[in-house]
C-alpha cells in the first residue's frame, strides 16, 4: 500500500516537472494568448474570431517586432467565470506576454477587473463591446481597438426617426451588458431626435419561446428594435412572423450578422430593408475592405460568405498589437511601458478605416449605417447607407455630460 502510494507520488512529481518545464522559453519569441468562446452558445462565433486573429498573425508570418509569435488559445463559454479561469491559466501558467480577448460583454467587464491584478501583462480586447469595460474605472493595461456597442449604433437612431419616420418603438434584447449597451447607443440619438421607446423586453440568453413577448408588443408602435444575436434572433424573428407580426424591424449590430442572414426561411423577404448599424458593412466599396473579404474567404474552407463582426474584430486587435510591437522592436523589457505607449498613440489602418484610442484606451473608429438588401445571388447582405468616421465612445458628447445618462442597464436610459 505505502509503496504504491510512494510510486504514485513519484509519477505525479515527474508529471508536474514536465508541466512546470513549460515556463522555460527562448528570449526571441513572444507568447500571445488568444481567448475566445470555443464552447457554449457563441462557439461558432468564437471559431470565427480565431480565424480573424490567425489571418493577422499569418499576414506577418507569425512575427512581430523581430520576434516569433507563439500563439496559445484559451476557451470560455461566454460566462465571466469561465473567461477568468481561462485567462488565469494563460497568464499565470502559460505566462503569456499579451492576452487578446474576450469575445462577449460580461466577460470583458470581468477581464477589466482581472487585468488590474496582473499589471505585468498587456490585455487587448477581443470583440467584447460592453460600455463600462473602458468607460467606468478602466484598467491601465486594457486596450480596446474595436469600438463598443454604443458606438456601433452611431447614426441609427436619427436615421430611423428622420428618414424612416419611426416615432414610437419597443426594444427586445438579451438580458446582459452587451444588449444594454446597444439599446443605449440606439436610444441616445433616437430619444434626442424626439422618438419614444414605449417598452423594453429583456429575455434570458438562449431563450427558445418568445410567445409571451410577441403577445405583449403593443399595436400602436412604428417598429421593433431587436438586439438579439445568433439563434435567439432567428427564434424571435420566426415566432414573431408566425404570430402574424408585421411591424418593421430595426436591427442591432449582431442581429443582422451573416449567421442570421444566411438562415433559410420566409423571414428573408421580411428582413429586406431593415436598417442597422455596426463596425462593418458587407458591401463597402473600399479596396482594403474588398481585399480583406477576399483574404478571409480564402483563409478557411469553413469561413462565412463575408467576415463576421467577430473575425473582423479579432483581426483588428491582432493587427494593432503587431503594429505596436513592430514600433518598439518587440521590446517588452521595461514592463511593457514603451509597448503600451505605442498602443495608445498609434493609428491603425484597418479594412474599415483608421482607428486610434482615446484616453480610456477605447477605440475611435468609423461606423457603418446599413440596410439589409438581397444580392443578385439571392443572399442577403448589409448595404452601406452611410459611413460615419471617427465615432468616439461618447458619440461626440463631452465625457462628463455623457456619464450623466448613467451606465447602460435594463432601465437606463429611458424615454417612454
Amino acid at each position, binding site marked *: *500500500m*505505502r*509503496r*504504491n*502510494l*510512494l*510510486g504514485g*507520488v513519484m509519477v505525479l512529481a515527474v508529471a*508536474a516537472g514536465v*508541466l*512546470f518545464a513549460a*515556463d522555460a522559453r527562448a528570449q526571441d519569441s513572444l507568447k500571445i494568448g488568444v481567448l475566445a468562446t*470555443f*464552447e457554449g452558445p457563441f462557439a461558432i462565433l468564437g*471559431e470565427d474570431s*480565431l480565424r480573424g486573429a490567425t489571418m493577422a498573425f499569418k499576414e506577418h508570418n507569425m512575427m512581430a517586432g523581430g520576434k516569433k509569435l507563439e500563439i*496559445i*488559445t*484559451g*476557451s470560455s*463559454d461566454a*460566462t*465571466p*467565470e*469561465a473567461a*477568468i*479561469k481561462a485567462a*488565469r*491559466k494563460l497568464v*499565470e*501558467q502559460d505566462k503569456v506576454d499579451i492576452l487578446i480577448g474576450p469575445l462577449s460583454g*460580461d466577460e470583458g*467587464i*470581468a477581464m477589466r*477587473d482581472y487585468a488590474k491584478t496582473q499589471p505585468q501583462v498587456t490585455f487587448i480586447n477581443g470583440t467584447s463591446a460592453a460600455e463600462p469595460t473602458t468607460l467606468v474605472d478602466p484598467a491601465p493595461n486594457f486596450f480596446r481597438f474595436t469600438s463598443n456597442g454604443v458606438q456601433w449604433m452611431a447614426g441609427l437612431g436619427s436615421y430611423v426617426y428622420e428618414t424612416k419616420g419611426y416615432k414610437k418603438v419597443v426594444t427586445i434584447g438579451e*438580458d*446582459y*451588458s452587451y444588449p444594454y449597451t446597444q439599446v443605449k447607443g440606439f436610444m441616445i440619438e433616437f430619444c434626442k431626435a424626439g422618438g419614444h421607446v414605449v417598452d423594453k423586453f429583456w429575455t*434570458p*440568453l438562449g431563450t427558445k419561446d418568445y410567445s409571451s413577448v410577441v403577445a405583449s408588443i403593443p399595436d400602436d408602435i412604428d417598429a421593433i428594435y431587436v438586439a438579439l444575436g445568433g439563434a435567439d434572433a432567428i427564434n424571435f424573428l420566426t415566432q414573431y412572423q408566425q404570430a402574424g407580426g408585421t411591424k418593421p424591424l430595426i436591427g442591432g449590430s449582431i442581429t443582422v450578422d451573416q449567421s442570421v442572414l444566411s438562415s433559410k426561411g420566409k423571414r428573408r423577404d421580411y428582413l429586406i430593408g431593415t436598417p442597422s448599424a455596426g463596425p462593418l458593412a458587407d458591401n463597402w466599396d473600399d479596396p482594403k475592405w474588398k481585399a480583406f473579404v477576399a483574404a478571409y474567404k480564402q483563409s478557411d474552407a469553413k469561413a462565412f460568405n463575408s467576415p463576421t463582426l467577430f473575425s473582423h474584430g479579432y483581426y483588428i486587435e491582432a493587427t494593432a498589437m503587431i503594429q505596436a510591437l513592430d514600433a518598439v522592436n518587440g521590446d517588452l523589457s521595461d514592463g511593457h511601458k514603451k509597448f503600451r505607449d505605442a498602443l495608445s498613440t498609434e493609428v491603425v489602418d484597418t479594412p474599415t478605416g483608421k482607428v486610434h484610442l482615446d484616453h480610456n484606451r477605447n477605440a475611435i473608429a468609423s461606423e457603418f449605417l446599413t440596410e439589409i438588401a438581397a444580392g443578385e445571388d439571392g443572399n442577403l447582405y448589409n448595404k452601406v447607407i452611410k459611413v460615419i468616421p471617427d465615432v468616439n465612445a461618447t458619440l461626440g458628447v463631452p465625457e462628463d455630460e455623457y456619464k450623466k445618462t448613467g451606465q447602460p442597464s*435594463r432601465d437606463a436610459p429611458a424615454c417612454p
Partner: protein
Amino acid sequence: MSTVADVMPGTTPRWLRPVLTYAIAAIALVIYPLIVPDFWAFQIGAQSLFLGVIALSLMFLGGYGGMVSLAQMTIAGVAGYLVAIIGGNSLNFGPAWPWWAAVPIAIAGGTLAATLVGVIAVRTAGIYTIMITIAIAMAFFYLAQQNYTLFNGHSGFASILPPHVFGIDWRTPIAFYFLSLLVAVLSYALVLYLSRSTFGIALQGIRDNARRMRALGFNVTAHRVAAYAMAGFIASFGGVLLVWFNSRISPGTVDTGPIFDILVIAVLGGMRRPIGPFVGAVIFVLLENFAIDFIDRERFNTLIGLCFLAIVLFSPDGVLGLWDRLTVLIDRAGAANRMLQRPIGNADRTQPAATGRPIPGRR
C-alpha cells in the same frame, strides 16, 4: 521504492499503515502550495479542494445513503448567493455585514435549503430522486436568472472577496489554498466520523434494506432528511469557497453544466470512500485546464469526455476502484518477486513461485 521496503519491511504493524498514509498525505498537502507556482496553488489546488468538498457531500448522500442528488451544486449556490447578498458586493446591494455574520448565515441558509430539498425528495428512490433534484436545481437556476429584486438576474454579483482576518488576506493564492485545505480536511473528517457513527451505520443500513430497518424501528424518513441536511451543510462550505474563488456568482454557477460536473467528479473519483471525490476533483480540474493544450481547440471537450468515459467504462467504481485493483496486482507481483529472490533451498519447492497468488492478509 526498494529503500522504503528495506526500512519498513512487510512486518509493519497493521495500525501503523493508515497513520503513515495520512502522515505522507498531510506533509504533501502542506508542502505542495509552497513549492508550486501560484497558479497551481490557487486554480488547481484550491479549486480541486472545494470542488472535492461539494462532491464529497454528494458522495455522502449517494455512497452511504443511496440517494443521488443533483441539487448539491444548487445548495452550494444558495450559500454562495447568501454570502454575496449579505456579505457585500460591487453593487452595494444588501446589508454588507462582516464575514463572521455572513458566512454562518450562508451555511445555515444552505443547510436549510438542503433540508427542504430532502423533505421533497426523500420519498423517491433511484432515478426519481435524480429527476426531482434536477427539477429543483433547474427551478433555482431560472429563479436566479429571472429575479432582479434579490438575485440581480443574469449578471449576478461581483467583487465578493474573502475577508482579511488575523492580518492575512485570504484571497492570496497560498492563504486561500490553506483555507480550502482546512475546510476539505474538516469535511473529510466529518464524513469519516459520520460513516462510523450510529447515524451513519443506520443510514447505510437504510441504503441496503430500508424495509428491514423500518421493521427494526428506525425512522427511515428522518434519517434520510438528516442525511440531506448534513450533505447540505458540507456543500454550503464548498459554496462559500466557490464564490470567494470566482469573486462573483451568477446563474451560470448553478446551471446544468456545473450541476453535472459535481456528479462527474464524484463518479470519476469513486463513490465508495470519502477520498474519492477529491481524487475526482483533481483529475477533473487538471483535464479542464490542460486538455486544450493537447488537442485541437474544437475537440478538447471531446478529449475530456473520452477520459471520463474510459474511467467509468473500465472501472465502474471510479479511479479509486482502479487504484484498488492496481494495488492488488502490484502486491501480487511483489510477492512473486520476493519468492523468486529467496535463496534456493529455503524456498518452498512445492509452491510454484511465479503464479503470483495473493498472499492472505497482505492487503
